[in-house]
Every structure is written in C-alpha cells, then in structure tokens.
C-alpha cells in the first residue's frame, strides 16, 4: 500500500517536474526570441544608421594645408618664399623620462628656458603620439650636430616645415606685409574650413590683400583612426591646390634706389605708371624686417618697433598724411583756369606778401623780396605763393575744395592692398562739424599754398600727378599684376584696370600746366632746375616745402635754429618723360628742408634708372 502510494507520488512528481522543465524551456525560447528580435532591429532595421555611426567613428578627415603662393617683383625677383625651417620635435609616447631626455638634448643643442616652458605647455595640448616642438628655427650647425646624435634619441626628430620668408627683408615690408599665425580675428574673415590645415595667414599688405589667391585650397586626407585618434591608414586623399604665385607691379631696381635714397631719413616715395596705375616703387622709410613677424615677434623687439620715434611700422606712403605745400599748386592752377578765375597770361604783382582786404595780417611769400610781375607759368615755375593766395581767394574755399576733389584728394585711391588714409580737404562744412567754428577767409589762402588743414597721402599725390601726366585719367593704383598657377604656370591678370576721367578740363589747359611743370625742372628759373641738368629726357615736376610749425609774422624761418623734427617736409612730384609719361613719382622727405634740394634729386635718380633706355623721339 505504502509502496504503491509512493510510486504514484513519484509518477505524479515526475510529470510535474517534466511540465515545469517544459515551461522553463518555452520561457527560455521566448526570451531568446526576444533577443533575436532586438538584434534584427539593430542589425537590419537600424543597420544604415549604425553603419553611418561606425563610419563616423573610424573615419576622420585630416586637412592638408596648401603651399602658399610665392610673390615676385614684376621683373621676377623673389620677394616672398616658403623656406623649410628646422624644428626639433619630440614624440612623448616614445619617451620614458622627459626630464632626462631634455637635459640630454640640451647638451647637444642650446635649449632655452622659454623653449622648455612652451614645450610643457604644448605637451598638455597634444596627444601622446603627436610630436611636440621643442625648439624652432634650428640653424644648420644645430641640425648637423643633432643628426649625428639622432640614433640616441629615437623619440626626437628634426622636422622641416615650410615657413614664409622675405628674402629682401625690409626693402618690401611695406608692400608685401607679412603672414603671421592665425588668430580668432582672422578666422572671422575667411572660410574656416579652408584654413583647417593652415597655421599662417596674411596679416597686412599684399599677403593680406591677396590672401585668397596666395593661400590655395585645402586638401583632405580621409584616414582611419582608432579610438585614441591614432591614424591607422589613409583611405582617400584629395590633394590641396597650392596657392598661386603673384607677380607685383614693383620694379625691384627702382624700389632699391628709392629705398636707398631715403636711407637714414623718414619719408615716402611712390612711383607709378601713369598709363595704368601700376605702382612701380613704394617706399616708406624707415622700414622693418617682416621676417620678425612670421612666427611671432618677441615682446621686446615689437615694443621697440612700436615705440620708435621713427615709427617704422607705419606705412607712410599710404597712411602718412602731409600738407602738400606747393605741390598742390598745379592742381589749384588748373582749377582756376577751368573756373575762368585765371587766364594763362593774367599777371599779378607779387611784393613778397599778400594781405586780405580789411585785414592787417600779412601772408608771406617764400621769397621775402617778392617775385614781381607773375603770370600763370611763372607762378608754378617759381612757386609764387602770393599768386596762389590771390587765386585761392578768388576761387573761394568751395570751388577750391571741389577742384581738388576731382584729383582724388580726400578720397582713398582704392589701392589694392588697402590700409590707406583718406587725407583731408578742409571746407566750411568740415570746420563747422569738426570744430563748430566758422570758416575764415584767411584759411582759404593758407589752403591755396597747400598748408593749414589740408592733408594728403604720398599715394594720393602720385595718383593726382599721374592724372596730370595723362590728361585727367585717374587710375586705381595697384601692386599686384599677374597671378601664376604653381603647377600649370598659367598666368592671369589680377587687375581689371579701373580708371575715371576728370572730364572738366580742356586739352589746352593740360598742356599749359604740363609746360609750367616742365619749366619747374628745365626752366631757367625753375625751382627744381638743379635736378633737370643733363637729363636725356624732359621731366615735369613741382617742388613743395611744407611747414611743420607756424612761423610768426616777423620771424624768419632759419633751418639751423629749429629742431630736426620740426623742420619743413620736402616734397616733389614729377613725371617723365614729359611728352609721353611712363613714370610719375611723389617724394616726401620728412623734415628734409626744401623740396628742391631734398626731394627733387631723388626723383631724378629714379627717372634716370627707370628711363635709362629712353631715346627721345
């Protein structure tokens, strides 16, 4: 009985357990089904999504910086190049003890405190397998010394990277400018994606103005990376498109002569082809070495440049505003002829001074004893101030102002490298706005001899002079002529020559003013006749001497009594050959004394060089 019961129990128990095992099995099957459903969802339905994510994970796009275009003068002299500079770099992950390594290296190569400080700083910003620069600009001796020992330092490499170099140093600094390390401001002006691989960007001058031509197009390298960002292999490569070379309008020989003529002086020279606006030479003295700025100038040097009394960083040719002095006279004379204020043959009597009606104030002529009987030609040739006091008085400030505006004064010339000043043509409106004062008739007289508030830049002056040379055509001056592809060498004009016509003057009037300017140089009594002797060509010019300080009524200007920085600026504008002008110049020598003695001879030197091959007729 009991055996039978137990047996029944076992049968029942076995059935029960079997049922539960079966239920468990079914539950397990369902749960596995659930897992597979999930995997189908991930691997089939969401597959595209995850494939994309996995691609994004492993594929990184690494930019490759393009090679920057070179800059040449118009005659093919290299002015900006990419030179390899050697730097010593360390790969941290290959080093056991960095301190030991640094001390061992410093036995071979002189490593300064700030090199080490910078090294530790950039070490923190980089990944373990990325090389960290320890010292820049190794010289050849250092490279050689280290290369011999290199086997001892498997983690250290000498790496050559191209850096911008300006072989002509300060000669072209104010034209080409320089590149510098990219900063946040730069990034706002460019397409950031195109600069991902680049370290430098044009900061000023041609380097900045033609950044888009010089820089080129960034290339890309699709690389497979692992989770630490280490490159495993290159998948695809789009090579960068190198920047284009640029040929400037600058004649390097002329530039050198201009530079030399201002050696040890402050001043500016701009030479221009009046037929198209090509700038042939542009000098601002003193200049600076643009190479200092490429990899960051050190604080002391920069400070000494900034605080220098001679302001070498200021581009005087574009930013220097000077009273034009008597160089304004040809433009005013032409204006007077046009408005019918003066006829070429009208004469006035110059007693050496001029006085407004109802005033006791005497406006002096530079020639105390006076020029006597003066006509239009003579007034230019001899630079008679009284004639122009009277002319200005008859014109009135409004016509005087408007006439000069026609020649581009008080407006930016639109030079391609930018950064120029606009100068100033005073007017009653300007004075009211600026000083809240009425215009006095005496100020018109002062403006008539290019003094007072009247300010022009050397570039404006040469541009206006060029317009005299070609009968009223004003070109937009420019420094870049042609771009050349680095690979195909295909050349393209950069400029579309822009010009505007000063239409109000009659052909005969241009001839009258040109003749007067020729007489300045070649006339028996011309103020610049000393610079015209024995020239193979005829020049047309005008001297100017701009006062830096006002001279009291009864005082005489004595150069030797006045400190150098308060002495007069010497100016000269000219073009040559007078009959078929191919070059126009403006020369300003700060505190150089008189235009005829300091500035005009420089113009003659420039012409002699530039027109050396000139045959009359």
């Amino acid at each position, binding site marked *: 009985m009991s055996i039978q019961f137990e047996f029944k129990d076992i049968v029942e128990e076995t059935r029960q*357990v079997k049922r539960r*095992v079966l239920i468990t099995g079914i539950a397990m099957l369902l*749960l596995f089904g659930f897992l597979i459903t999930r*995997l189908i969802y*991930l*691997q089939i339905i969401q*597959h595209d999504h995850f*494939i994309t994510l*996995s691609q994004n994970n492993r594929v990184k796009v690494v930019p490759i910086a393009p090679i920057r275009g070179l800059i040449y003068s118009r005659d093919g002299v290299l002015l900006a190049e990419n030179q390899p500079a050697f730097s010593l770099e360390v790969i941290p992950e290959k080093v056991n003890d960095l301190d030991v390594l640094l001390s061992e290296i410093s036995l071979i190569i002189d490593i300064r405190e700030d090199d080490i400080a910078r090294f530790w700083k950039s070490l923190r910003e980089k990944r373990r397998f990325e090389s960290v620069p320890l010292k820049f600009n190794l010289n050849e001796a250092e490279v050689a010394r280290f290369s011999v020992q290199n086997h001892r330092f498997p983690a250290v490499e000498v790496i050559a990277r191209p850096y911008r170099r300006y072989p002509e140093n300060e000669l072209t600094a104010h034209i080409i400018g320089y590149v510098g390390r990219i900063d946040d401001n730069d990034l706002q002006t460019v397409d950031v994606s195109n600069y991902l691989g680049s370290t430098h960007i044009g900061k000023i001058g041609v380097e900045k103005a033609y950044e888009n031509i010089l820089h080129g197009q960034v290339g890309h390298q699709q690389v497979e990376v692992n989770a630490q960002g280490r490159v495993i292999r290159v998948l695809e490569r789009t090579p960068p498109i190198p920047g284009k070379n640029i040929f400037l309008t600058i004649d390097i020989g002329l530039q050198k002569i201009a530079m030399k003529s201002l050696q040890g002086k402050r001043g500016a020279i701009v030479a221009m082809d009046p037929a198209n606006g090509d700038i042939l030479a542009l000098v601002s003295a003193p200049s600076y070495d643009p190479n200092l700025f490429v990899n960051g100038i050190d604080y002391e040097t920069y400070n000494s440049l900034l605080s220098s009394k001679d302001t070498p960083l200021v581009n005087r040719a574009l930013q220097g505003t000077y009273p034009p002095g008597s160089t304004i006279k040809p433009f005013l004379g032409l204006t007077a002829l046009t408005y019918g204020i003066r006829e070429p043959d009208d004469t006035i009597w110059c007693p050496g001074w001029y006085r407004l009606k109802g005033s006791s104030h005497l406006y002096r002529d530079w020639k105390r004893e006076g020029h006597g009987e003066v006509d239009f030609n003579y007034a230019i040739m001899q630079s008679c101030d009284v004639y122009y006091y009277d002319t200005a008085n008859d014109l009135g400030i409004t016509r005087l102002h408007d006439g000069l505006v026609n020649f581009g004064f008080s407006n930016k010339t639109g030079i391609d490298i930018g950064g120029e000043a606009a100068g100033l043509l005073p007017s009653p409106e300007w004075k009211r706005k600026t000083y809240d004062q009425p215009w006095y008739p005496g100020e018109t007289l002062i403006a008539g001899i290019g003094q007072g508030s009247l300010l022009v830049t050397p570039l404006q002056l040469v541009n206006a002079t060029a317009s005299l040379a070609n009968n009223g055509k004003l070109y937009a001056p420019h420094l870049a002529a042609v771009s050349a592809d680095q690979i195909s060498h295909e050349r393209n004009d950069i400029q579309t020559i822009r010009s505007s016509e000063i239409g109000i003057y009659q052909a005969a009037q241009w001839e009258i003013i040109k003749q007067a300017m020729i007489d300045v140089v070649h006339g028996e009594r011309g103020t610049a006749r000393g610079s015209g002797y024995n020239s193979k060509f005829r020049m047309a010019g005008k001297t100017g001497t701009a006062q830096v300080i006002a001279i009291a009524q009864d005082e005489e200007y004595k150069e030797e009594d006045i400190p150098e920085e308060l002495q007069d600026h010497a100016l000269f504008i000219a073009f040559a050959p007078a009959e078929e002008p191919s070059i126009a110049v403006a020369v300003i020598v700060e505190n150089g004394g008189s235009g005829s003695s300091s500035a005009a001879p420089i113009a003659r030197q420039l012409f002699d060089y530039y027109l050396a091959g000139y045959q009359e007729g």
Partner: protein
Amino acid sequence: MEKRTVAQKLHIDMPLLFGIVVLCCIGLVVLYSAGGQNLHLVIRQAVIMTVALLLLFLTAQINPYQLQRWSIWFYLLGIILLIIVLLAGYTGKGAQRWLNLGLFRFQPSELMKLGVPMVMAWFIAGSQVPPNIGRVLLGCVFIIVPVLLIAKQPDLGTAVLVGAAGFAVLFISGISWRFIISVMVLIASAMPVIWYFMHDYQKRRVLTFLNPEQDPLGAGYHTIQAKIAIGSGGLFGKGWLNGTQSHLEFLPERSTDFIFAVFSEEFGLMGVVLLIAIYGYVIGRGLWIAMNAQETFGKLLASGLIMTLFVYVFVNIGMVSGQLPVVGVPLPLISLGGTSIVTLMLVFGILMSISTHRRMLSSQV
C-alpha cells in the same frame, strides 16, 4: 538491458559535449579577432579550455548521489569563503571578489553558482515534492543569503546568476503559481529598497541603461559603442577580422564581456542567430537531461544548472545589445577569462554525471 556505449562508460554525454566543443571553437575564433590577432591570447584560452574540459570529465565521473551528500557542506564552505572575502578588506576598484590562494586567485562567488543549485536540489529532494510553504521559505533563505553576500561585493551579474539558478530549482520543484505570483509582486514592491542599497556605479549603470546617450563618453560609452558594432554588422557582418569598431579600439572590453559585439559586427545577424541556436541546443540538451534524470535531486540540480547557463547567455547578449544593464556577465565559453569557463565546465560535468549515472529502477525501489 540495453548495451552501454563507451561514452556512457566514460560518463560522457556526447550531444552535450558536441555543443560545448563547437562553442569553444567559435570562442577561440572570435577571440583571435577581438584580441587584436594575438595568438598568445588564443593559445592561453585554449589551454584553459582543455584543462577545464579535463575537470568536466573528472566531475562527470562523480555519482550524483555523492554530490547530493556533499551539497550542504559545499554550500556552507562557499558561504564562509564569501564572508571571508567581505572581511578580507576592501581593495581594488570598487569591488572585492577575489581570494588570494597564493598560486591563483579564486572567486568564492563562482562556487555558489554550483553551490546554490546543489543545496536547493538537496534541500527540496530531501522531502516531499512539491515542497510546502515553510520549506519554500526556508529554501528562499538558502538562496538569498549568498545572493546578498555576492551583491555586496559588489558583483551584480553573479548575484543574478546565482539567484536565478536557485529560484529555477524552486520553480521546477512545482511550487504553486499562486506563490510564484505573490513573490513577484513582493519583489516588484521591494525594488525601491534594492535601489537604495545599490552602489553608485550600479545605479549609474541602470540609469545609463535606461538612457545611454545621456553620457556618451562616460557611462554610456560601452553601450553606445556596442550597439554601433552590432548594428553596423548587418545581416552578414563585416567578416572575420574586419570589424572596425573592435579593431580600432572603440569597443571597450571587447575580448571579455563585450565579445558578443565583436561577433555580431563580424558575423552579422546570420552568425548571431546561429550562435544563439547553438546555445539553445546546449540548453535544450540540458533540459532534456533534467527531464529524464532518474532522481528528483538530479532533475532539480540539472534544471538549476542549465538555468545558470541560460542566464549567462541572456544577460550577456541582453546587456551588450543594450536591453539590460551592464552587469559584467561574460558570454559563456567565448569571452576571455578562465574563471567562468572552469565554472561552466563543472556545470556541464555535473549535467553529464546526472545524464550518465543511471541505476536500475528496480534496484532503487
């Protein structure tokens, strides 16, 4: 009387052995890829597998009757060792699981993967089946004590495995559905309490599991990268050794707990389904052994042990594919690491023992 085959004489269950060997082979192949084609790693794993297989054969020779007798002592030894582990100090990174035995380190919690189902089978089979409420509750204590000790280490994955095996034995023993449902309700209401006792890293893992994207570079990184690996595998996978996620080191713990992601990336859904089918086959064979075991102890123990294997597979794949929290459970026989392989081989050894040690019914009654 049927004729006993050689396999039966050696106490080897051939269908089960077949499944185990296939899984081991798959494991070595995947490990070669996941370990960055490091042959040393694969050879070491193969050696561990071979040693563990030897242990399997030795275990299979032990009569279930012996196991039944040792059960309570085995269990108590495990409990003592777990307590020693807890007292032995708190080193390491947030978890103290190891006992240093000089020659090798040893995780007492692994013992409990065998100890709990054994003691439960012994306990239940020792009296009438199904057990009454009192014995069920006492049985629950047998389970919960080691589970809490292990969870305290903290080793959530092992705690789940051990608990699941124990409760599987209870379930198989035929306890009433009413009881099961009431316990489930109780557990659901105890969740907040469990949450309170969780370690920060465990809570974070749970939270991350709920929304991994909230911390893509921190806590959610494992899950996100694993999902990318699995999803990008597609239907046929990227091919062996071609998994980009794993070879480019995006996938963490790719040789160990996350090896399933490597497998899925390289072999795709087809491979995954095949792998799960093989696990299903091994588990099915285990369940068959449980159903056909002669004695209650054998039935219950086999069920509990096979539940361990199932939970291993389910929790691992579930966590790698982002459905379960990351609790640190390896993929059986495939993940790198000796401990789980030895434990699993012992499990299979016991299963074979149960399957092959048959006494004549007449001699038993």
